[in-house]
């Protein structure tokens, strides 16, 4: 999913290093496939995801319904694809929100420097120890369970790590000679940000984003699992897992397929993120 982006940013050797990491490459392909399939689901799903067929409710997997049907006779495969679309959407958009906030906050902290910087970073330290899941749950209840609010609430608590990493990187860049040269030549702060900081931060940002997506998707799944996230008739993987867990004794297939797909997606995202970090992050400490 994020491969094309990285390709254009990265040096040749980093890209070659990445290609040698088989787990990361396979994860990348898996993610591309699952994203494509989920987003094409309105076209390729065998049944409409909300079509009920009570005559065929709670059937085990068969040729007509590859992954079985749920209690209302809805096709599990079609729902899995639609739920995947929602889960991936939350993952991508909420990460984008976290990215924007994290970059702005991190760069700002590094730019102002001094005591203000210390205060800003201490704030991040303190906030990251708070029970943020509670706040996300409250937000989704307050602002209704609509999708944009879920994106914002989930993204709004996921930027802290990002801000920390960006700030450390920016501080190093700020002290580097080429930035000081640009400063002494009279380039504006915005020019330095867009011409020097952003291109140099791009690799870090790509890695950070890939590793934020799984956390964000987990958070959405948590909220949906508690019945406070995505609302019926729409579904998400978290919601499907909850519905499956409720009746796992009678219909285990309702639990198994969403759980497996969800876990595989998170696993791939982690592999991909680790692979990108090893390939593109010079400071990577993994050996």
């Amino acid at each position, binding site marked *: 999913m994020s491969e094309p982006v990285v390709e254009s940013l990265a040096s040749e050797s980093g890209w070659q290093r990445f290609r040698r990491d088989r787990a990361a490459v396979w994860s990348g392909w898996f993610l591309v496939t699952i994203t494509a399939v989920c987003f094409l689901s309105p076209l390729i799903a065998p049944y409409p995801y909300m079509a009920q067929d009570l005559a065929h409710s709670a059937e085990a997997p068969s040729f007509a319904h590859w992954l079985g049907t749920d209690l209302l006779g809805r096709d599990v495969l079609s729902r899995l694809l639609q739920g995947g679309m929602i889960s991936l959407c939350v993952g991508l958009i909420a990460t984008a929100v976290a990215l924007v906030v994290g970059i702005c906050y991190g760069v700002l902290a590094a730019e102002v420097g001094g005591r203000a910087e210390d205060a800003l970073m201490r704030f991040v330290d303190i906030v990251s120890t*708070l*029970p943020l899941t509670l706040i996300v749950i409250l937000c989704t209840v*307050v602002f209704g369970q609509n999708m944009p609010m879920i994106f914002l609430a989930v993204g709004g608590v996921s930027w802290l790590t990002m801000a920390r990493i960006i700030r450390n990187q920016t501080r190093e860049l700020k002290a580097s000679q080429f930035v000081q040269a640009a400063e002494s030549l009279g380039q504006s702060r915005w020019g330095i940000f867009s011409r020097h900081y952003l291109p140099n931060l791009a690799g870090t940002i790509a890695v950070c984003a890939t590793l934020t997506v799984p956390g964000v998707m987990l958070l959405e*799944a948590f909220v949906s699992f508690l019945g406070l996230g995505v609302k019926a008739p729409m579904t998400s993987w978290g919601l499907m897992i*909850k519905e499956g*867990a409720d009746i796992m004794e009678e219909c285990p297939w309702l639990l198994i397929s969403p759980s497996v797909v969800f876990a595989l997606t998170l696993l791939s995202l982690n592999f991909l993120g680790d692979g990108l970090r090893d390939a593109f992050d010079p400071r990577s400490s993994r050996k």
Partner: protein
Amino acid sequence: MAYVLRRLLEMIPVLLIVVAATFFLAHAVPGGPFDKDRPLPAEVKARLEQYYGLDQPLPVQLGNYVVNLAQGDLGPSIKYPGWSVREVIGSRIGVSASLGLVSLLLAVLIGVPVGVLAASRPNSWLDRVPMGFTLVGICVPSFVLGPILALIFSLGLGWLPPCGWGSAIHFVLPACTLGLITAAPLARLTRGSLMEVRSLDYVRTARAKGVPPLRVWFVHALRNALLPVVTYLGPAAAGLVSGSFVIESLFDVPGMGRLFVTAIINRDVMLILGTTVVYAVALLFLNLAADLANAALNPKVARSR
């Protein structure tokens, strides 16, 4: 000592912000605690709101709440008439605290040794197999692991009760689920940190001057390597809190997590605030404890204060 005092003082503004944010969010939740299927008569509702102080302007309510909070009073519960929030939480907190502590203990007792073992023979099967499992542990959310464990050990093998609360045996499944999920990142962190430390000069020096290998490993390397692990315990505790929401509803455990979720569904503003405050205080103290433990392990940190 001055450091501890400063950290304690620092908690006060943090708590105030948490209270204010939660307060306005909780009051913005559409629907009130007295909205039922059959609407109450207007004057009854007005009397009730007056009794609970809900008729006053929000800033005044917030001020009253903070003043009461400073005296340890969390206010009356709205959905449990005659009970104070303190009593309601008091009746549940033991369950959640014991579950959380046992899970955390389990996570440390599993995670750290597994990490040490993996780092002692890097890239052997002793490293690959457990690290593969930890990756699974990171990606399988608690609400998937929980049902799977229940499926195997209670429905399949019949060894453990699938849900409920009361005796020690009910502890096993929820604590194992939470503990295993938390152990996975701990093991990876321990391994990574040990791998880094053992290539440092002072470890080589210790080995060169003839310190027994096990002593180098446990006394010289591990003490330093555990620093990031101890620091991680704070965020891990926060993870346990959100995990407990799911685990408690999954295994039917009467704890704080379920209390919070029902409080939201019931629009019980006082109870929402109370649980959030208790969680925030608990996490702030856990983080302080982790930082103090860090200082005890690392004289450099202790001196810099």
